[in-house]
C-alpha cells in the first residue's frame, strides 16, 4: 500500500465523466465572480477616481475583506445562500476579485497622462464620451494586469469551497485526501493550474489584441 503511485493513469480515463462536470463547475464558479467583479469595479473605480476621498476608505474595507479567510466566509454564508450552492462560493470570490480590480481600475484611470486628458477636453469631448473613448481604453493594460491576477487567484481559490461541499475541482483534493489517494489530488492541481494558465494566456492574448499601442511598454 505504501507503493501507491503518484498518478494512476487509468483512473483518470475511467473517472473523466465525473471530473468533467467538476471542471465545468469550477470554471463557472471561478469566472463568474471575476466578471461580476469587473462590472462592479468599473463604476466603483470611476467613483474612486472622481471622489478621491472615498477611495482610501474603500481600499481599507477591501483590504479587510481580502484578509478574511475564505473558508470562514463560506461558512458564514451557508445559512444565507444555501449549502453547497455556487452562490456560497461565488460571493466571497467576487469580493476578492473586487479587492484586486478596484485598485486596478483606479490605477488604470490615473495612468492616463494628464496631457492626454487635457487634449481630450480641449477637443470638445463630453465627459461621458471622454470616459468611454479615451480614459477607459487607455486604462485597459493596467486593468487587464489586475484582471489576470484576479482570474488566476479566483481559479485557485474556488477549490477551498470543497470544504463546504462545493469546490469544483477542489472536490478531488478532499476525495484524494480521504482515501489517501494521490491521483485525484494531482489531477486536480494540474487541472487548476492548466485552467489558470489558459485563462491567463487568453487574457494576455486579449491584451495584445486590444492594446497594440501599449506593446512598447511591456505587458507585465
Amino acid at each position: 500500500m505504501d507503493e501507491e503511485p503518484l498518478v494512476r493513469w487509468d483512473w483518470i480515463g475511467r473517472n473523466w465523466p465525473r471530473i468533467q462536470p467538476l471542471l465545468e463547475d469550477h470554471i463557472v464558479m471561478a469566472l463568474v465572480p471575476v466578471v461580476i467583479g469587473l462590472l462592479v469595479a468599473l463604476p466603483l473605480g470611476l467613483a474612486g477616481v472622481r471622489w478621491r476621498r472615498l477611495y482610501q476608505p474603500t481600499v481599507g474595507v477591501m483590504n479587510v475583506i481580502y484578509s478574511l479567510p475564505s473558508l470562514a466566509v463560506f461558512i458564514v454564508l451557508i445559512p444565507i445562500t444555501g449549502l453547497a450552492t455556487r452562490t456560497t462560493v461565488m460571493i466571497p470570490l467576487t469580493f476578492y476579485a473586487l479587492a484586486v480590480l478596484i485598485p486596478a481600475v483606479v490605477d488604470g484611470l490615473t495612468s492616463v497622462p494628464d496631457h492626454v486628458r487635457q487634449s481630450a477636453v480641449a477637443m470638445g469631448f463630453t465627459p461621458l464620451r471622454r470616459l468611454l473613448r479615451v480614459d477607459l481604453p487607455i486604462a485597459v493594460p493596467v486593468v487587464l494586469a489586475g484582471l489576470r491576477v484576479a482570474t488566476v487567484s479566483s481559479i485557485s481559490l474556488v477549490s477551498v469551497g470543497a470544504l463546504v461541499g462545493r469546490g469544483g475541482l477542489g472536490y478531488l483534493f478532499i476525495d484524494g485526501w480521504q482515501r489517501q489517494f494521490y491521483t485525484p489530488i494531482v489531477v486536480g492541481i494540474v487541472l487548476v493550474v492548466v485552467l489558470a494558465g489558459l485563462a491567463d494566456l487568453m487574457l494576455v492574448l486579449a491584451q495584445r489584441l486590444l492594446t497594440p499601442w501599449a506593446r512598447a511598454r511591456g505587458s507585465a
Partner: protein
Amino acid sequence: MNWLIDFFGDPANWSGPEGIPVRLLEHLEFAGLSLLLAMLIAIPLGLWIGHTGRGALLVVLSANAARALPTLGLLVLIVLFMGVGTIVPVLIPLVALAVPPILVNTYEGIRGVDPDLRDAAYGMGLRGGQVLGRVLVPVALPLILLGLRLAAIQVVATATVAAYVGLGGLGRYIIDGLATKNYPSTIGGAVLVALLALLVQFAFVLAQRVTVSPGVSGRQDIR
C-alpha cells in the same frame, strides 16, 4: 455580536492547548515561517533578476503559475506524502502562495528604477553590489514592501487551511466550528484572523514609515 461575546467571553477559549494564545502562536508560526522562507527565496531572486535583467520572462510566467497553485490541493498532497509530524507540509503551500507577490514586486521595483539613476550610480564608480544595495533597493523599497505586505496578508488568511489536515492555528476555530456547527467559534476564528491580518498591515505601514526614505515617499505623494 453575541457570537463574538460567546466566543471571546468563554474563558475556556483563553487557556490550554486549544486556547487563543496557543492557537495564535501556532498561526503566527505558520505564517511567519512561511513568509520568512518566501522572502529568503523571492527577494534575492527578484533582486538578481531585476538587477541583471536575466530571466525576466520566467518571473512573469512562473509567478502567475504559482498564483494558480491551489493551496488546499498542495497541502493535502504534501501531507499525504510526508504525514503531519512537522509543520513543513503547511509551510510549502504557504511559501508557494507568498513567493509570487514578493518576487514580482521585488523584480518590478528594481526593474522600474529610472535607468538614468542606475547610470549615474555606475558612472560615479559604484560597484554592481553597491548600486543594488545603496541605490536600487532603497528606491524600490516601497514596492518591495508592498509585495511583502500582500504576501503576509494572504499567508495569514490562508494559514487557516492547515486545520483541515489536523494542524493547529486559528483555522482550528473555523474548521471545528464548521464541524460542530459552533457558529461563535467560526466567527471568532475569522475575526481573529482578520485582526491579525490588519495588525500585519499596520506593522508594514510602520515599517514603511521607518525604512523608506522621505525622499522616495515624498516623491510618490506628489505624483
